[in-house]
């Protein structure tokens, strides 16, 4: 799947590209407005990561152009502008998601995964992954044809891991994903541990392979 990273900070663009490349994504980079316009006009992408403040023009104009050309590329805005106004404006014009800088790369991967999922019409809303069948709309997990009951948080975590296959995810990134804005009240990672422990146990009980692994000292990894 093709991803276009429109970001004027080369170091950030490079990190994103490096993190996403490999498994399932092919990344291209545009570092300014004209480059971005050219690429979006010429090619189709499964997902475009769009920084709003670009040298040479307003990132929102790229979004406008995409929608005017009836292009179906998924768009995730990545911006330092965190204000609600920008968020609403971006989503109104047709962005699929909005992520405020700074963000964790696994979080970005999860958003991209979800946007691409929603955009693909040929696909049903079911992800098949080895013995796991994940129904995104119904938020249901079936393992070996047996329904596994997960809480909302556990289901969310599972999707997060699936969209970051073979990547080490730090406890910090997980905590921020689970807790969102209120992550700063975290005294320790007990809550994160608890959720992951439960998910692991439910998967194991259902006879699922041991994909979710603890990486000693740093975090977790969905290893396949």
């Amino acid at each position, binding site marked *: 799947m093709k991803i276009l990273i429109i970001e004027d*900070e080369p*170091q*950030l663009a490079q*990190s*994103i590209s*490096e*993190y996403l490349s490999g498994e399932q994504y092919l990344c291209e980079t545009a570092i300014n407005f004209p480059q971005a316009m050219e690429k979006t006009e010429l090619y189709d992408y499964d997902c475009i990561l769009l920084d709003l403040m670009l040298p040479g023009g307003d990132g929102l104009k790229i979004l406008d152009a995409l929608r005017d050309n009836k292009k179906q590329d998924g768009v995730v805005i990545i911006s*330092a*502008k*965190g*204000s*609600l*106004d920008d968020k609403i404006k971006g989503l109104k014009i047709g962005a699929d998601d909005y992520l*405020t*800088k*700074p*963000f*964790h*790369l*696994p979080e970005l991967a999860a958003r991209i995964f979800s946007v691409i999922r929603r955009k693909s019409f040929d696909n049903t809303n079911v992800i098949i992954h080895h013995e796991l069948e994940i129904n995104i709309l119904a938020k249901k997990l079936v393992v070996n044809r047996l329904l596994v009951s997960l809480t909302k*948080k556990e289901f969310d975590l599972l999707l997060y891991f699936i969209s970051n296959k073979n*990547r*080490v*995810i*730090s*406890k*910090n*990134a997980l905590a*921020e994903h*689970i*807790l*969102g*804005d*209120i*992550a*700063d*009240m*975290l*005294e320790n990672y*007990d*809550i994160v541990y*608890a*959720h992951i422990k439960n998910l692991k146990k439910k998967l194991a009980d259902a006879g699922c392979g041991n994909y979710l692994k603890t*990486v*000693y*000292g*740093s*975090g977790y990894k969905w290893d396949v």
Partner: protein
Amino acid sequence: MIRLLDKSFKVFMWYAGIVLACSIPAYYAIVDYIWQTELKEHNTIVSEEIKNNLQSQNFSDSVLNKSVALWNQLQPSSHLREVTELKSDSTYNIYRKNNFSKKEERFQGLTTYFQLKGKKFALSVETNMEESHETILGLALVSLIFFVLLLIGLIILNRRLSDKIWQPFNSSIKTIQEFDLNRHDLPVFEETDIVEFETLNTRLEHLIKANINSFEQQKQFVENASHELQTPLAVIQSKLDLFLQEAALSKRQSEIIDQAQNALGKANRINRNMLLLAKIENNHFEDREWIDLKELLQENLEMMNSFIEAKRLSVALSCSGITKIKTNSTLLEILLSNLLTNAIRYSEENSKIDIQISGHYLMISNPGTQALKQEHLFQRFGRVNNETPATGLGLAIIHQVCLQFKWDITYAFEACQHKFSVNFS
């Protein structure tokens, strides 16, 4: 504290009192002197006339003796007696009891000597004179009356003057008192034709303008600075996330990354909160809508449920009255979530958080052991503690939101409970 005009008034009154008091002996001396001189003159005229009259009569010795006796008997204010030698005239001033009224009276007297038919006589003429204590009393009374008149007059004038002359000054003071740096309106001073007040007002205006400017710049700076920090923070964050993917990381290396992630997370949150504070100050949240306080609070509680459960806290929510508020939903949510976060964070396990909503009044209380220090409570980084992931900006944000909407936030520590209450009306 004393008012400026009262201060000068006091001094004036002391001075007037002293002058009037000093005037009493002075008046007395003058009045008494005039009295005495007049009476001496009068006595001289009378005695001269008596002498002349006596000398022009041709009395025989026996008639003379009889006449003198009769004279002394009938004439109260003069006395004739025979003396052995002639002396020069003398005056005297005495107090003595009058024959009729039992009072001590004051007399001015003149004794003059003359010869009649070879005999030597002394003639004393006395005139009743005002007693000095009576004079002094009278003068003191008049002075007092004038002093009181002066006092009343000055008080009235003082009041009128203070109202009138100081009116522009008082108006300037009022304008300054009403000035609030957080609201963005420049104070307007009343026009005045008094040079001093005009100067004062112009200087004040300059000062305030400069103040507002630097405040604006400062706010803008904080916003820009936090903004600019976002991208480098994002780069560090992404590099750490990437570093973690290295295949051959040792346990020690992973731990170091983890520790760096934690600190970076805190830096991110501080920066985000600083940006939020700057945005509130810079009025980025202008939208207003009707929000149900109770619903929003319940939604927030829902979001924090995992924390509440993890600490095995119980939450009691009581609600009464109409709880709808017209305000900015984002800011209200931030306020509520910060208040709840604090209550949850600083509660011991298994304790109870009490939330009361009555109309537009909200109180959140949680148990604690010691009152928080009021002075730095709502200040930025006022209670920063490196042990917790708290940014030290939570209460500052709460305070800023309240300031923005002129809501009243109070903290109290009663019966081992931290109580934060917000009055939304």
